[in-house]
């Protein structure tokens, strides 16, 4: 437990009380222990109170602790950081904060928070920094860098405008920005391959339909869940079924079973694809579907979701996945119910592979579903 060096106590006041800090490491350790189901909350509350009274020289240490923090702990740290920036004694250690920001291996959200602080204290400096942040590892910073280019490009024309948009495309990962860039570049006869840019998986094998009448088959194990034999024939809902190929040329990568195969109702379909990874790596599968689904990667169930027709939105689901070097087997069970409303007829999925900031990742080689 750290020892306060200076204490200002104003009885009757409810403002934060500055305490110059010698050592905040115990407070940080305590906060880093918060976890699921309120574990460590009470201790973190006390540590947060203590940490919030530290002076501004403590900010770099708080930032470093973000790198070890879970999504709950970063909120305690952020809040303490804010309080110290507002009420803490001393001067903001701007050079140290900038060093933290420049190291892209640091916590992305904490870096974005630091950038915002710089933007508040030195807007012109932040503006200049953005020019070199178009491929930053932080999605939030990159979004601002792309936005700056697009805003400035509004004043340009011809090749200058086109080149500015091509530059912005390198950093753009947010759908609204990418589609704006695509639409603008199209006027300059430049086609943007959205499937490739977003890392969409567009080539699959498919098999089904299997029975899902009355939505009873979410947990029914059909043969593709126990064996991947692409030459096999199984008994399906409407007769024998075999694996077939399904590919999409939809720019946004929608694999539409209803349109490409049949608008089955009360059905289960399985989709299979492979992702050739150049290395062992942690990625995110970002998906959108209005149908219930289960996802296996290399034979392991990674997530399951039994929700029908609550909308289909870009990046609706984000599932963290560890890929191994080489071919990774992706099996997707997608279930349709029997709702009759016109808004409940979607039977499709968008499926992309990206890094944790949302940048699309390309496989080493595309999957060929015909083999």
């Amino acid at each position: 437990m750290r020892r306060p060096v200076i204490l200002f106590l104003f009885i009757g006041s409810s403002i934060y009380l500055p305490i110059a800090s010698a050592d905040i490491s115990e407070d940080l350790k305590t906060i880093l222990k918060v976890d699921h189901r309120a574990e460590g909350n009470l201790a973190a509350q006390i540590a947060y109170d203590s940490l919030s009274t530290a002076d501004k020289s403590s900010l770099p240490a708080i930032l470093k602790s973000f790198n070890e923090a879970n999504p709950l702990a970063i909120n305690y740290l952020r809040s303490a950081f804010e309080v110290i920036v507002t009420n803490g004694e001393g001067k903001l250690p701007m050079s140290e904060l900038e060093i933290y920001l420049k190291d892209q291996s640091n916590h992305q959200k904490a870096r974005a928070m630091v950038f915002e602080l710089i933007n508040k204290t030195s807007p012109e400096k932040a503006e200049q920094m953005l020019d070199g942040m178009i491929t930053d590892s932080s999605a939030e910073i990159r979004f601002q860098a792309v936005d700056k280019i697009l805003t400035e490009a509004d004043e340009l024309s011809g090749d200058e405008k086109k080149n500015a948009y091509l530059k912005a495309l390198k950093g753009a990962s947010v759908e609204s920005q990418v589609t704006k860039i695509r639409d603008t570049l199209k006027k300059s006869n430049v086609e943007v391959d959205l499937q490739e840019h977003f890392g969409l998986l567009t080539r699959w094998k498919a098999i089904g339909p299997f029975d899902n009448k009355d939505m009873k088959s979410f947990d029914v194990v059909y043969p593709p869940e126990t064996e991947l034999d692409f030459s096999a024939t199984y008994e399906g809902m409407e007769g024998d079924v075999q694996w077939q190929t399904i590919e999409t040329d939809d720019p946004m990568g929608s694999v539409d079973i209803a349109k490409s195969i049949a608008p089955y109702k009360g059905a289960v379909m399985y989709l299979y694809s492979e992702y050739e990874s150049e290395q062992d790596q942690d990625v995110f599968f970002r998906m959108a579907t209005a149908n219930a689904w289960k996802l296996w990667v290399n034979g392991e169930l990674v997530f399951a979701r039994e929700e029908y027709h609550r909308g289909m939105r870009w990046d609706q689901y984000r599932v963290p996945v560890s890929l191994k070097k080489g071919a990774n087997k992706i099996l997707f069970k997608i279930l349709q119910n029997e709702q009759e409303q016109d808004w409940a007829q979607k039977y499709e999925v968008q499926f992309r592979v990206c890094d944790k900031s949302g940048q699309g990742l390309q496989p080493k080689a595309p999957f060929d579903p015909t083999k």
Partner: protein
Amino acid sequence: MSYIRSFLLITLTLNCTQNLRAEDWRQFRGNNISGVSASPLPDVISGDTIKWEVDLPGRGLSAPIVVGDRVYVSASSGFDQDRLHLLCFNKQTGTQIFERQFWATGRTVSHPKMSNATPTPCSDGERIFITFSSNDVICTDLDGKLRWFRGMNYDYPNATNSLGMSSSPVVIDETLIVQVESDADSFAFGLNVKDGTERWQLERPRKANWTSPTIVEKPQPLVLLQSAKGIDAIEPKTGKSVWKYDSGASTIPSSLVSGEVVYIPSNGITAIDLNKPNDDALWNVKRLRPSTPSPILTNGMLLTVGSVITAAEPDTGDKLWEFRVSGPFSASPIASGKYVYLFSENGLAQVVEVSKEEGKLISDYDFGEKILATPAASDGAIFVRSDGHLWKIGN
């Protein structure tokens, strides 16, 4: 913990404690979740009655709440709606007292009309509890000091709704009641206000649910959890079920408790005597079906809002009149005596005078911005927010 730190903590806690006031508006639809103001509100809304306007940094369908001389409001921002805001303003002047920001730990996806800041915060007079569609539950003191943070989606990854979550929490008996209900995992939680630990957790019907819990004070303190299956009346501190109504209920407008009767959006409106909840309903009227706004009872009339206001006798459900208003509405109405205040999605404020004979529009004002949030009322003023602004309306 050192002596000095303990003393400091106790002192600050005492400083933050404020007496509860009738003029507080501590949760969605006010202290008793009736939507009725304790004091008269202006009968005219115009540019002249707007006392102040402040900018908000993010979107929100959440209502403002009022504790003492402060107005609190939540918002969410960012291209992913993952930036969570709590803002606090001086009630008299609109001066911002503080802003706190957090990051969502759960899913932020929602229908475009909704936003992450859809549930309304609540307060027990000492703490502010802020929840979001991402199922993040944040507790601060009245000065914005973080007390605890729960990520219910972080704990229960499948308790989400792709259209967004909107249930606003209530706090009673040192327990924060949070409904996290969806087609997939579905729960209700009673969280200890001091640290967010679970006093109880209930499995709930697996069906998307946007309603908010309602508090019953008599004959015993209960919380009514509404769902597609009906109502489950529970003890706040234990979660123990006391009675059930199982004839189904809406998953959008919430129930209204007035006196010893609960008016449930169920097959229209169904009235239940809280002294005899297991007996047959007092009455049921299908034609009183509310749309998104929750029902309200004022000036001796039960009112539901759709494309028209429908007035009914609270004792019988007999229809008195209908009055066409300019919708559509996401916000629930608030009222003061004979005046009912409606804010349409198009930003049109309408003051309707209601009597047993008729409803009559006496004032309207176009705010020029989309308004989806239910207003709050305190000390004769109305507080309403859009995605971009918070306004105080008063005489």
